[in-house]
């Protein structure tokens, strides 16, 4: 009746990402594809390893980064207890997975489209680039804190025009913000589309400049989630009218002028 389902799937592969390998705690998790008809970039899955038993009750949400008939790939940064334990999974382990969940990024094949990624916010853009009919209309900007070779940057930079900036010291941040300002102004001017994914302060910056220059921009939120299906109301954000709406079902992608961050 629906594309979504919940299945036990097997882990196919857990592999470090980037040339520096495990340094930044980035890895790619490849799981069996549980009979999906399809998915759209920006959508996510909830995954919960069977080995968690009763401690850590909640599954964790991750953007679908790539996938085909056989497998689903997630790009994950180990930041806490859950993601660290996910990094320890081995091929053959069982994971409960439900999805594809949520809405997706706007795709306008012929519109110049800027992808703004903060750190692991790059994950959904891999799929976006892969599925986009005209990748020559895409440009990627990655703001990163760890050395570039920690990130799955090359997966995208081979296909689309890409730029990246390291935030190592406070003054770097100003450079990044200035660059984002210029980029967003540029895309506003040419009637382009700005899509962004990253930590909340990063999203706020996008939102601010999009408003300033009237850019059509989308932000993808990473609110903490319990159910992922719209039931618990733990992940809500405020929409344009100040009403609480679920990020998992009404998002994770919002038009920047239709959400309070």
């Amino acid at each position: 009746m629906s594309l979504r389902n919940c299945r036990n799937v097997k882990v196919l592969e857990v592999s470090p990402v980037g040339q520096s390998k495990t340094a930044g705690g980035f890895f790619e998790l490849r799981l069996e594809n549980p009979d999906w008809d399809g998915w759209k970039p920006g959508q996510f899955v909830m995954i919960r390893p069977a080995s968690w038993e009763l401690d850590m009750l909640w599954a964790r949400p991750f953007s679908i980064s790539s996938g085909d008939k056989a497998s689903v790939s997630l790009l994950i940064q180990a930041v806490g207890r859950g993601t660290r334990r996910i990094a320890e999974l081995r091929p053959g382990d069982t994971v409960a997975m439900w999805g594809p969940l949520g809405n997706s990024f706007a795709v306008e094949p012929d519109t110049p489209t800027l992808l703004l990624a903060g750190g692991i916010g790059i994950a959904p853009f891999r799929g976006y680039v892969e599925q986009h009919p005209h990748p020559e209309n895409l440009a990627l900007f990655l703001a990163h804190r760890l050395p570039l070779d920690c990130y799955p940057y090359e997966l995208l930079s081979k296909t689309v025009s890409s730029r990246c900036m390291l935030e190592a010291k406070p003054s770097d941040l100003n450079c990044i913000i200035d660059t984002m300002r210029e980029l967003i102004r540029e895309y506003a001017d040419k009637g382009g589309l700005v899509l962004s994914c990253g930590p909340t302060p990063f999203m706020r910056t996008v939102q601010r400049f999009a408003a300033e220059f009237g850019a059509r921009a989308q932000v993808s939120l990473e609110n903490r989630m319990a159910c992922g299906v719209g039931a618990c109301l733990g992940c809500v954000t405020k929409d344009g009218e100040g009403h609480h709406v679920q990020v998992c079902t009404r998002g994770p992608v919002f038009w920047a002028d239709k959400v309070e961050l």
Partner: protein
Amino acid sequence: MDMQVNFGGLFLKNPVMTASGTFGFGLEFAPYGDLKRLGGIVAKGLSLKPREGNPMPRIAETPCGMLNAIGIQNPGVEHFVTKALPALPWKDVAVVANLYACDAEEFGELAGVLAGEEGVAALEVNVSCPNVKEGGIAFGQDPAQIGRVTEAVKKRAGNKHVMVKLSPNVTDIAVCARAAAEGGADSLSLINTLSGMAVDIRNRKPRIANVIAGLSGPAIKPVALRCVHQAVRAVDIPVVGIGGIASAEDALEFLLVGAQAVQVGTANFLRPDFAFGLADEMAALLETIGAASLDEFRGSLQLPL
């Protein structure tokens, strides 16, 4: 094994209900299983007017449990009646409305709105509101108020089954159970969440904007079992067990101490298809452990002399 249960005029195809606030209006879970496989669906808490609920953050993970202070965000009872209820397969699964208000009159009004709705099998009265005010004693912790609210709902509920949901944050759950029974409750459901809190030592803030929140999940199962055990012995009306159920074995534990049925809450977040298979698993487990029937098993806990 025959898993039907029937108490106080409420018929359930099997003893598995989903707990209020953890299953939305039910429709959110339709992609993950057939709603008709459930014994009952308790809808998310309803108030007379729409409520935006508490500020964020509202949820936090704790050891084998979670805290929530959603603050009964809901679109109001009218929306439920006109939009959600018609979309639910209420002929094949008992749909229970969960009522939230902060005084007896408002509870009565809510009951009045729902009394005439054919699709509503029962009203569950949430007298706990543990999330809503920091500190202080919720009115659901006061037996006199519990009695008053129950009477008010009963008076306006027509022929609907009225289930009163009790808070565990009390000195004596038996006194609260008796207050609800004397107020005319057709059944009790318990427990609601335990009052708890979590803080972040790095930013020195509460992890929940509301500060005090409700603890649920497997962590609280021992408290829930104790409360159900005490309630079953305190009153003659049926009792529905809630709290930390995350397996068929957990569910049977509540039946063993005397519950007629159970509600599954937080476990719906572990995986959205959790509740659908539970009744079948319970039936299979009952056979494995040699129970003759659900009735034979229910309440058959052997206490020391």
